């Protein structure tokens, strides 16, 4: 016995360690995830950077590049973007505009969303149930819904293309051009779009906040104002900061709103400038723009992770939080309710009404000329070259493309998400699992449009440009974070013993997944499929650089129509928004999942 104790213990042979590793499915999944996702995260960025140093055909017009060969090395793009006379027009001014617009939007979102959250959780406002359902709508509807409605509403014969709008038609009031196109409306519309997001985050904290914290302060004789200042606000602060950062970063990478509402003059932001570069074939400069967008996005979200990680979560959910005493508003509860109803309608119902009306007017903005021609006229093309919406083949082929794309993305993202969830939860804590988890979350941090640009570069390099395959690839990767979060959460809720019980009686891995694990956590897994589907149906900025004349999606078709046929565009807009709302409603009813409960995309 003693001799054995003195001998060095033999190490397991490497080959056996490897064999053990390979035979476990979770290890293979993690390995594949790390390799494939690592490739598709690192490679596009590498391509982006390398393309900013190459000469493209469209660049040969520049005097500095006359006579160079296509594909040769040059630092011209960087110089031009950052250090030339035109840097201001093409880079610094769009950057400044984007930052100001995003700042304003964040402030508006937090004020509006935060105040409503406070009113609903802490006062005796009327019609609370109504508000908490309807207030979310603007966030579920595509981001340009309020933007296009804004134009429909405020357009008047003194500005723009001198058409009438809803406000002018009903009341004759005209508003100046800077209120309809440019910085102010973009900031307001983005703020309204993200206000529900602020409401959810801030309201969540307020709701879960232990009522006792405020009661204890009351008993210790603090005034209402002091309680809000010294107790409620500091506790809500992490949520406020988080909201600010998330809304800021989302606004920085917003494309649809500044595209529709930016006007035709000098208001350009990073995203719209990027689109212009890519459309004109100036890939070098476009990719530089994309790189900066990525850096910004990563930096902001990095700060957010630190802020929310460091401060301990101040909410505890105890079983016995009693009724908080609501602040009595007196007569203000009716006044505030009415004001809120008006604002909610403006952001939720009125857009749909407006799209319906505008799509039926012969003369845009003039409601005395209503007709259903733009919807149902099958015959001769209408004056804008299209048939009535239901007979226009472009619409149905775009619809089909959108559905096919969304289905494919959601199937791929959802399934991979489940597998990743399974593997990460089984090997939780190991470095491999951490790497896979982080890589699967990374696409969420990249601004959509920059990601589109990056995959444009990949598409060109791999010969996939302008194909549906590229769209599916980028969509699947973009929505993977939703699905992998769902997958991981679902698996973490399952105790490992459930699978072990099946393992002991020799059930193979695929059967365990299919017949045991999946059915138990069905609803969480399914939300991992349905969230990508809904998001994909309403996505524009991700796909706008990648889809083209051959593959129209509903959203890119709208972008295309918006500029030249307003009635049909409004009809299409209505169709898209209603489709998204219906899908979200169905998904919500079936599984309880909803875009607003998602990771916040």
């Amino acid at each position: 016995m003693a001799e054995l104790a003195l001998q060095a213990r033999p190490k397991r042979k490497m080959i056996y360690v490897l064999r053990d590793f390979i035979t476990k499915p979770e290890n293979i999944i993690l390995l594949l995830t790390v390799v494939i996702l690592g490739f598709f995260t690192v490679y596009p960025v590498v391509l982006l950077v390398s393309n900013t140093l190459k000469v493209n055909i469209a660049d040969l017009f520049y005097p500095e590049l006359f006579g160079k060969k296509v594909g040769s090395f040059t630092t011209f793009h960087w110089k031009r973007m950052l250090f030339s006379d035109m840097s201001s027009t093409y880079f610094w001014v769009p950057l400044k505009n984007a930052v100001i617009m995003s700042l304003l939007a964040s402030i508006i979102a937090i004020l509006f969303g935060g105040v409503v959250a406070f009113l609903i959780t802490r006062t005796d406002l009327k019609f609370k149930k109504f508000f908490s359902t309807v207030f979310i709508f603007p966030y579920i509807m595509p981001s340009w819904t309020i933007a296009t409605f804004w134009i429909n509403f405020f357009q008047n014969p003194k500005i723009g293309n001198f058409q009438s709008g809803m406000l002018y038609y009903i009341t004759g009031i005209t508003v100046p051009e800077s209120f309809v196109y440019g910085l102010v409306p973009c900031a307001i519309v983005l703020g309204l779009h993200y206000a529900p997001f602020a409401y959810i985050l801030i309201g969540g904290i307020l709701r879960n906040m232990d009522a006792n914290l405020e009661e204890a302060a009351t008993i210790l004789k603090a005034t209402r104002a002091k309680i809000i200042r010294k107790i409620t606000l500091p506790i809500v602060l992490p949520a406020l900061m988080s909201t600010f950062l998330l809304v800021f970063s989302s606004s920085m990478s917003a494309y649809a709103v500044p595209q529709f509402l930016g006007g035709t003059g000098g208001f350009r932001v990073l995203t719209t400038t990027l689109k212009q570069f890519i459309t004109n074939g100036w890939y070098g400069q476009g990719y530089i723009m994309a790189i900066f967008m990525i850096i910004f996005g990563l930096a902001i979200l990095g700060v957010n992770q630190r802020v929310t990680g460091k401060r301990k979560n101040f909410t505890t959910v105890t079983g016995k939080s009693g009724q908080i005493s609501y602040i009595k508003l007196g007569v203000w509860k009716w006044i505030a309710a009415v004001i809120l109803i008006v604002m909610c309608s403006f952001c939720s119902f009125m857009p749909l009404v407006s799209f319906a009306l505008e799509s039926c007017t012969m003369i845009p903005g003039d409601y005395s000329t209503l007709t259903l021609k733009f919807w149902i006229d099958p015959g001769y093309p209408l004056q804008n070259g299209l048939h009535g919406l239901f007979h226009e083949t472009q619409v149905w082929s775009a619809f089909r493309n959108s559905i096919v794309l969304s289905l494919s993305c959601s199937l791929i993202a959802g399934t991979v998400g489940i597998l990743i969830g399974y593997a990460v939860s089984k090997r939780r804590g190991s470095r491999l699992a951490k790497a896979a988890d982080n890589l699967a979350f990374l696409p969420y941090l990249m601004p959509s449009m920059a990601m589109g640009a990056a995959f444009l570069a990949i598409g060109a390099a791999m010969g996939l440009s302008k194909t549906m395959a590229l769209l599916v690839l980028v969509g699947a990767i973009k929505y993977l974070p939703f699905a992998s979060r769902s997958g991981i959460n679902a698996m973490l809720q399952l105790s490992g013993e459930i699978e072990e019980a099946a393992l002991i009686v020799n059930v193979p891995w695929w059967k365990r997944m299919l017949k045991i694990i999946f059915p138990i956590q069905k609803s969480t897994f399914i939300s991992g499929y349905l969230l990508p589907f809904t998001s994909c149906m309403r996505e524009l900025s991700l796909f706008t650089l990648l889809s083209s004349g051959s593959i129209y999606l509903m959203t890119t078709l709208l972008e295309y129509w918006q500029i030249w046929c307003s009635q049909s565009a409004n009809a299409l807009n209505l169709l898209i928004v209603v489709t998204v709302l219906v899908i979200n409603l169905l998904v919500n009813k079936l599984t309880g999942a909803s875009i607003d409960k998602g990771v916040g995309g």
Partner: protein
Amino acid sequence: MKKLVALVLVFALVCGFAFANAATEAVADTVEAKIAKGQTLSDAELLALAKEESGDFYAYGNSSRVANAMKGFIAKYGEELGLNENNAVGTKMNDAEIYSTITQEATGSSAKVASVVMIQDGAQLVMYRSASDMFLNYVPGAVAGVLDKGDVLPLVHQYINKLFIWNVLGDNVPVITNVWQLTEPGLKDRIFFKNPTTEQVNNNFLIMCTSDEWAKKLADAYKSYYGKDIQLGSYKNAGYKWVAEFLANVNFSVSSDTTICNTVASAESAGNMGLFVLSKTRDLDATLKANLQVGAFTEAQIDPFSGFMYPLYVQMTKAANRPYTAMLFINYLMTSEGFKPWGGAGTNILGAYSTNPAIGAAEGDQAIDFWKECLVAEDAAYIMQNRTVVSDFINAEIAKK
């Protein structure tokens, strides 16, 4: 782990290149050879060769009329070629998309390829032709002799014009006789014009205004309008000055020529005008048409130009899968029957002028020589040299708005 990732990266890169290269090589030689052969053949001989080809036939153009032309082509030859509206399609795409799509298709990895494109913006086309071989020129034997020298390489199918057109209703009709009127403060936001950053031919027009020839004419027009010499200030020449002041007055809120046409023609648009494609007036009904007055058709016309014109080119692609069909199609396009969707003699569609002298102008329109006198034309060489400088200038001016 890192090594593994690097290995995979390199592997993917290598595969991508190899694939792309292999595909392009296969197609390259044969199409050019076929073109050389096809230029000498008659329609019937081309038809016979086209019959042996297979696959779908695609053409891209930036107007929906390429689709109409395709329909006419199928009606004529479809049965014999086995083509119908499902496998022979004319697709409308804007110029930038056509260039990027053809670039992609030229790598040989696209399932769908176009054999023919109808495309604008000569400077860019010339640039692409010199920097790559994705566009190939084919001149139908039947017209090779009768075309103008300048319209042959690359082959010009037609000229299109954009004119100053104004609404005649109301008390404030902008009757233009001199382009410097367009820089007056009274016309601010009343001139509709498609944004040059998205419409390259508009951009080219503005570039041409800065050329020596037109700058001089603009300076003279200034003198004759204001009675004194032009003061350039910081502008390089009269052209730059005119472009800057013109852009300050332009209303960019409508982004399609069709809509501009409809907007300016509408009864509500008294006092407005536009610089847009003349042929868009074809779709207006009579009452709306009556609201418009084309500057070039007035007695005085406009000093020194009533608008501008630009060529529409036809090219074949390197990746073409049906070269002989393409050549037959181009032959068809150069005939008056093939030109019908755009206009020409026997139609009342204004604004399109075939380079084939056998095809006259439409009813109510003027012949191409008339237009060459009073419009600014594209000079590809000048534009290539000055595109970026002037475009930057234009972008900066627009940003000031």
